[in-house]
Structures are given as C-alpha cells and as structure tokens.
C-alpha cells in the first residue's frame, strides 16, 4: 500500500477507536447524569451524594460477584435494587425535612450525606480498593474493520442504551412518568390533581439511584476495581454533563453525558492526559458563565 494512504487510514482508525472509548465513557456519564437531572428537575436540589450512591452500587455489584458468585447481569440488578432503596431512604431522612428550606441548606445537607456515605464505607470496609478476581469477566476483544472493541465496551454501551430506552418508556408512557413530569413543572398543581408528591419524589430518587448503581457496576467492570472514594470524580463529571446538556432535562443528561465522554477521551487521547480531569471543570465554568441553561435548555424569563 502506498504510504500516504496508510497514514490516512491510521488516522481514521485512531479517531474511531477514540470514539468508541468515548461512547463507553459517555454512556456511564449519561447514566449518572440522568439521576442528577431527574432529582434537580423535581426538587431543585443538586444531590451531591449521587456519585456516592453510584459507589455503593459498585460495591454491591462487587460483593454480589465475589461473595455470591452471580454473573454480571444479576450483579447489576442487585445493585440497582439496593441503591433504589438507598436513594429513597436518603431522601426521606435528609432531604424531605428541608423541602421548604433554602436551597443552600439542602445543598449543605447533601454535601454532608456525600461525606457520610464515603467515610462510612471507609470505616466499615477499609479505604483500600478492592480488585475483581480475574475470573469475573474474562476480557475478550473483537476486531471489526480494524477497530478493537472489547466485550466490556459492548456490555456497557448495550446495557446503557437498554436502560435509557426503559427510562424513556417509563417517563413517556406510564402514569408514574406523567406524575414525575407534573411535579417537576408545578408541584402545587400536581397536588391538586391528586398526585402524591412524596411518593413521586421517592420514585424519582429510586430510579435515579438505580441508574447510578448500574453505572457503578459498569465502572467496576471497566476498571476491575472499586474503592470508597470512586464516586467523587465521576460524580462531579456526570454533574457537569447534566448541566452541559441542560439540568432538569432528561434528553439533556443523555446528550451531555455522551458529549462529555467523547470530549474527555479526545482531549486525553490527542492532548495531554494530565488535563483530562480539567476538561470537566473547564466545561462547567464555561457553561455556567455563558449559558447556564445548557445546550438543550431554553432561556425563559422567569416571572416573579
């Protein structure tokens, strides 16, 4: 083959490879971002503890695989159920009492809850990271048109898409979904329509936390380890993704998640990996200063 052509193919391949990596990462961010955005949409709270709920999910998945010997799908389901319950409990004890307080008070409480989850886990299970045994998921690589795709990538992207489709179905087609949308738009009117606000908020937390748990298990699979502080950075990045897409908007979380994942992969792949984390912060600052309502958000003037 003539040399110039080889170079172009190589560039194309490199680009597509990064794209796939970006999609995996983006899928994970999107799942976590969905939880942030759903909670913000319904009670205007940035749930600082959301990333840590993801961490708990990862741990549940870990113990499910190592102690119960379950397969990856079962582990994910266990994690999702456990975190759904955790999310509901957290909302009930820490956030519900502050529903009519200032948002700052609720934010401070959420920070406290985040710290609590992290350090309670450290206290109970130790600060070291735990490694999945080799047998847990044997890595298999497939080569399609010169691109390397691992079974992990496939698992992550496919599960994420499936979960998002299920979510869309719930939101658009079920009564619960309608209730969630109603409470987001106008809480008082929803009450007058006979919707139980408490129940709807609990369900929102349950679903958001379950999605985060799924993401947690995926991260565990991807990196083969779990540790108590693993929720902090991905949590923050997923939050940025939610804001990027438009906080409170579900399609926004999905768009934001994938965009951030791809952006980060490209910066890390083509630029410097040192600045990888800075991408998220940079994006956040830019968005907040230029268009806080995000990519998909609308600029409606608020009526006072």
């Amino acid at each position: 083959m003539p040399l110039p052509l080889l170079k172009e193919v190589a560039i194309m391949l490199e680009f597509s490879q990064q794209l796939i990596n970006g999609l995996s990462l983006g899928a994970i961010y999107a799942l976590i971002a969905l939880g942030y955005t759903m909670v913000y949409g319904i009670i205007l709270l940035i749930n600082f503890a959301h990333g840590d709920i993801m961490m708990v999910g990862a741990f549940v998945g870990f113990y499910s695989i190592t102690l119960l010997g379950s397969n990856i799908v079962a582990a994910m389901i266990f994690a999702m159920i456990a975190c759904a319950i955790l999310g509901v409990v957290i909302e009930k004890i820490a956030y519900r009492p502050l529903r009519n307080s200032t948002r700052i008070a609720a934010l401070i409480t959420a920070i406290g809850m985040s710290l609590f989850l992290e350090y309670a886990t450290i206290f109970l299970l130790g600060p070291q990271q735990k490694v999945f045994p080799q047998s847990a998921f044997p890595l298999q690589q497939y080569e399609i048109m010169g691109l390397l795709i691992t079974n992990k990538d496939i698992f992550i992207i496919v599960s994420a898409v499936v979960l998002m489709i299920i979510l869309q179905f719930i939101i658009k087609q079920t009564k619960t979904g309608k209730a969630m949308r109603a409470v987001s738009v106008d809480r008082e009117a929803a009450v007058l329509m006979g919707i139980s606000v408490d129940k709807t908020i609990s369900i929102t937390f349950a679903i958001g936390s379950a999605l985060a748990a799924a993401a947690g298990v995926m991260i565990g699979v991807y990196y083969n380890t779990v540790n108590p502080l693993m929720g902090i950075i991905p949590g923050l990045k997923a939050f940025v993704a939610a804001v990027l897409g438009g906080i409170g908007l579900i399609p926004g979380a999905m768009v934001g998640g994938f965009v951030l994942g791809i952006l980060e992969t490209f910066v890390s792949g083509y630029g410097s990996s040192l600045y990888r984390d800075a991408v998220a912060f940079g994006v956040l600052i830019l968005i907040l200063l230029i268009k806080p309502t995000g990519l998909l958000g609308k600029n409606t003037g608020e009526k006072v």
Partner: protein
Amino acid sequence: MQEKKRNWLSFGGEVLILAAIFTIVQYAITAGLLNQYYQINLASMVINIILAVSLNLINGFTGQLSLGHAGFMAVGAYASVIMTNMLGYPFIAGLLMACLAAALAGFIIGVPTLRLKGDYLAIATLAFGEVIRVVLQNIDAVNGPAGIVGISRLTTWPWLFGAMLLTILVVVNLVNSSYGRAIISVREDEIASELMGINTTSYKVLAFVFGAMFAGLAGALYAHYFYIIKPETFNFLKSFDILVMVVLGGLGSTTGAVIAAMFITVLTAVLQSFPAIRMILYALTLIIVMIYRPQGLMGNRELSRQTFGRIWGGRK
C-alpha cells in the same frame, strides 16, 4: 460623658485581656511548657480560626455559599513561599504577597461567578477551587504534585496571634458598619437590597475578596509552619472542613466561627488516629445542624461588649 468613659474603660479592659492571653501563651512557649504536640495544635487552631472567620464573611454574612475557600488558601500559601523561599524576601513580604495574590484571585473568580444564583454559585466556586489545585499540580516551577518541601519555619506565635487579631478585627469592623449592613441586606433579600440602592454584585465581590484575602493569609502562615505544601493539601475536602466549622458555629456569627474552629481543631487532634470517624462526625454535623438547628451554635448572635456587660453588670 459617663457612656464615653465606660466605653473607654471596657476598651481598655479588652486590650488588657488580649495582651494577657498573648503573653501567657508566649511565655508558655518560650519556657518550654508547651510541647511540640500542643504547639502544632495551637498553630492549627489559629489558622482554622482565620479560615473560619473569613469564610463566614462570605457564606454567613453575605449569604453566598462558597465551596472553594481552600483554593484561596493555596494561592496565599504558594505566593508566600515563592516570595520567601525562592526569592529570598522577608516573611512580612511573603504575607503581604499572599494577601494580595489571594485577594486578586478572589476578584478574578468572584466577578464572573457571583452573578450566578445559589447552588450554581456554590458549584462554580467548588469547580474553581479544583481548577486552582489542578493548575498548581501542573506547574513545574513549583514542583507540581510533589509540592514544595523544606519551607523555613517562619510562623511564630506573635505572627499567628497578630494575624488572627487582624482578621477578626477587620471582619468585625466591616460587619458593624453601613457597609456591613449593606452586605447583610444582600443575604436577607437581594432584590429588595438592590432596589434600596445597593449594588449587590459589588458587595458580594467585596465580601468575597476580603474573605479570599484572609484565606490567603492563613495559607501563608500554614506553609511557613508545616514545612511542606502540596496542591493536594488544598482540595475540596479542606474546603468542606472549613464549611463544617462555619455551619457549626452559626452562619453569620463571627464568635460562632471562632468557637467552632477551636472545637473542630480539638476534635481533629483527638481523632487523629481515626480520620474516618472524624469525617463521619463532620458529615453528621452538617446534616443534623441543617435539619434541626440551621442557625448553628450562635445563630447570628455575637458575644459583644453588651453581652459581657449584661453578664458582669447584672443589668437588663
């Protein structure tokens, strides 16, 4: 006339008490009565007091939740060390540069972010705090993540005491003035405040810059006591530490911030071997205080001349 005489008397009394505290501690140090352990904790306590009082100006009095205070501490720490260790200037120059650099950082960050509301502002300040850390981690001139070691121990009790006094005095004087009232009105009702002629953005930035400046001062004192500084020292966990002090003490009470800072320092020392438990206690503090007693220990009351007068004079 009587009122004026009484004021001067109590002022004189206050000066005497402060002088006494200073001298007693100084003596204890020189005479070797306080061992290394106590001295370290004393230094930490004073530094924490400065951090808490300065953050309280922003979070408590102005009502703007800032979660990146450690970033300003970092700026001050690094700026001062560059002046002293690298450029050979005396300590006072390092301290002044720390204040200046941190104040400047406060201004640069404050102007764009203070236009944001409530929780967006909080997240933006958190992000900026982390950006400062990441930037410092990537500057080779200051050794990146390894940080700077071997910083000369220039921070002594007189410096600590003086800085603490300065911080408290400036904050208290600022708050008890028309400017202070303007700042508090921003917290109470920003729209009404603006409509009463107060440029709320200016005053938010003012409080932010002052708060940042003193955090920088604390950073400089910290660097020149603890030999080593790394970007990791000034991460968001440090910011949360300071937040816990301010929340516990009462958002809007300088006295509360001082008391809480002292308490947290002692708690940290006691739980030195159990960092996880300490963090769990911090976490529970934030949650429980916010739900059951959001005004913290002191609410927005202060220990003032009036209060002391009432206690001692038995008047109503």
